[in-house]
């Protein structure tokens, strides 16, 4: 499959948007402007971008506590996301969810999730609905290496397999379940090996290479749309920052961190774009500047937005 210039540039813009959004969130959090806590996606941008490039608004995703990247890649609105991080009434969840619960059901985004591994059965269920309604829509479940140890992983992959559900399980293996290194929390090195237990295809790809992710996801999405059932894709990647902002990261090997920073997915794509002469350094700077402007205006929107009405604590508990 030949990737076009337009596709690669679109990947780049998405990845830069995620990176810039997250850097801004880090800055705002450090300045004490965001309530709660935030888990940033910096370093893992190629995964969400490469996968979601295969999806339309009719397809579903489930996300994680580290969800900003998935939401942006699936088309989520940055201004509404930022307002939600601030807990404002104009935010995606009207200030009721915060960073860990942003959703846009109309875009098929069934929510970030504060419970590790909770998205797996939910994605299987969304895929069940796609199949039940006889559409060719699919569901993608993003989760981490840590979540592949949850019982939800086993139950959901098994159920998806026997029901041949159109769901793609995308494991973002960033090598850590919070502070616990992969070698300490499982005795397999490739999480994709676990697919064999459910009789479904499993592949491992370089999660920092957006094209590799895109191609693996394209195959799995195509398989799902054709009614051939679920797949597991493991994307090996690295969380540049801590589990949460403020995490001192004492558990990380500085040399390993350094080695992974050299494989930064955004910088790798910049290199590729310039080598292929798809863009000049100046043109890439222009993209970055335009993205920065969008993020800045999202922050302005959020900061200028009203807080929720205190009485709204009781609305939206039930649908009437």
């Amino acid at each position: 499959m030949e990737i076009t210039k337009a596709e690669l540039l679109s990947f780049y813009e998405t990845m830069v948007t995620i990176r810039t959004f997250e850097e801004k969130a880090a800055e705002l959090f450090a300045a004490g402007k965001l309530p709660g806590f935030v888990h940033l996606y910096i370093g893992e941008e190629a995964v969400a971008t490469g996968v979601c490039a295969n999806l339309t608004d009719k397809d579903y995703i489930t996300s994680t506590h580290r969800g900003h990247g998935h939401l942006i890649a699936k088309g989520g609105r940055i201004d509404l996301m930022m307002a939600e991080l601030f807990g404002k009434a104009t935010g995606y969840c009207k200030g009721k969810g915060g960073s860990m619960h942003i959703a846009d059901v109309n875009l098929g985004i069934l929510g970030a999730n504060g419970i590790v591994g909770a998205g797996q059965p939910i994605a299987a269920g969304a895929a069940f609905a796609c199949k039940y309604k006889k559409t060719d829509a699919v569901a993608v479940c993003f989760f981490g290496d840590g979540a592949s140890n949850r019982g939800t992983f086993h139950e959901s992959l098994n159920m998806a397999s026997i029901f041949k559900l159109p769901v793609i399980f995308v494991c973002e293996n960033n090598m850590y379940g919070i502070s616990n290194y992969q070698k300490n929390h499982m005795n397999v090195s490739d999480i994709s090996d676990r697919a064999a237990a459910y009789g479904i295809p499993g592949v491992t790809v370089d999660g920092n290479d957006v094209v590799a992710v895109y191609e693996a996801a394209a195959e799995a999405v195509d398989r799902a749309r054709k009614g051939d059932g679920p797949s597991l894709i493991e994307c090996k990647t690295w969380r540049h920052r801590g589990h949460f902002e403020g995490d001192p990261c004492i558990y990380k090997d500085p040399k390993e961190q350094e080695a992974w920073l050299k494989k930064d997915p955004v910088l790798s794509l910049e290199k590729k774009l310039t080598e292929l002469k798809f863009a000049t350094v100046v043109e890439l700077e222009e993209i970055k500047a335009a993205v920065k402007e969008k993020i800045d205006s999202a922050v302005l929107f959020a900061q200028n937005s009203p807080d929720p009405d205190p009485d709204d604590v009781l609305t939206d508990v039930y649908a009437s």
Partner: protein
Amino acid sequence: MKQMTYAEALRDGIRLEMQRDPHVYLAGEDVGIFGGCFGQTAGLYQEFGPERIVDTPISETAIVGHAVGAAAAGLRPIVEIMFIDFMGVCMDEILNQAAKMRYMFGGKAKVPMVIRTPCGAGVSAAAQHSQSLEAFFTHIPGIKTVMPSTPADAKGLMCAAIRDDNPVIYIEHKMLLGLQGDVPEGEYVIPLGKADIKRKGSDVTIVAWSAMVHKALAAAEALAKEGISAEVLDPRTLNPLDKDSILNSVGKTERLVIVHEATRTGGFGGEIAAIVADEGFDLLNAPIKRVTAPDAPVPFSPVLERNYLPSEEKIIKAVKELF
């Protein structure tokens, strides 16, 4: 009206709603060809086929979790958890997903799903197959809790639960499944949150739900012979709770006994007592009494189990203490 068992009536409700709305389907362990552990779903597989009556693996987490995703994506799943005791296995999917999705997303999601599950002791099924755990669910905002006591209520509340746009825990008592009664034919929907006076009385209000309604009715019958007129009020749904009907009844009788099969501490009876103490203190002419199971697991031996359960005699004793 037609004579039906409680199990047939709830199945009639499921069947009618499935005929009415193609988005309704049923999934769970052994609900298909096998027809459900207690026969509740017998015949549905033959009528609706494997796409709508779905046998699942023994995976309670994925059963409830998939229903959350399917509901958020536009279907109206009914899932069965074979015994309420197994709800612990899928509690995150209820507690943190189904119940909270709408709120966390600022009202932008709808999770219309029913979790059907049998509760209750009485067949020596011991501690892991006999519990009454409704208070787990009434403590979670975002879900509704329904506990029918008669065949007619089983049907009417099932239809309402399926049509509701929220997650509903529908708790069917295993000792009631074979109970016969008159059931309205055709469409029959009982709004959630509407109590039913199962017996009118003037001297004491007995609030009881699920299987305990029948023990309360037997107690009321015996009390009548002794000149005490007991009103038996069945809230039918604990959330939403028909508080007004309870307060109205207590306003009339000035005495309240609450009966539930669940263990005492933290049971929903405490909540009703608190509501009446708070909002109806002046109505009362005697202390509020609770007749419940003791704070112990459900025992196996029939002798122990009989002593464990609230009985007609225990209810009569509690009522008499108020006079």
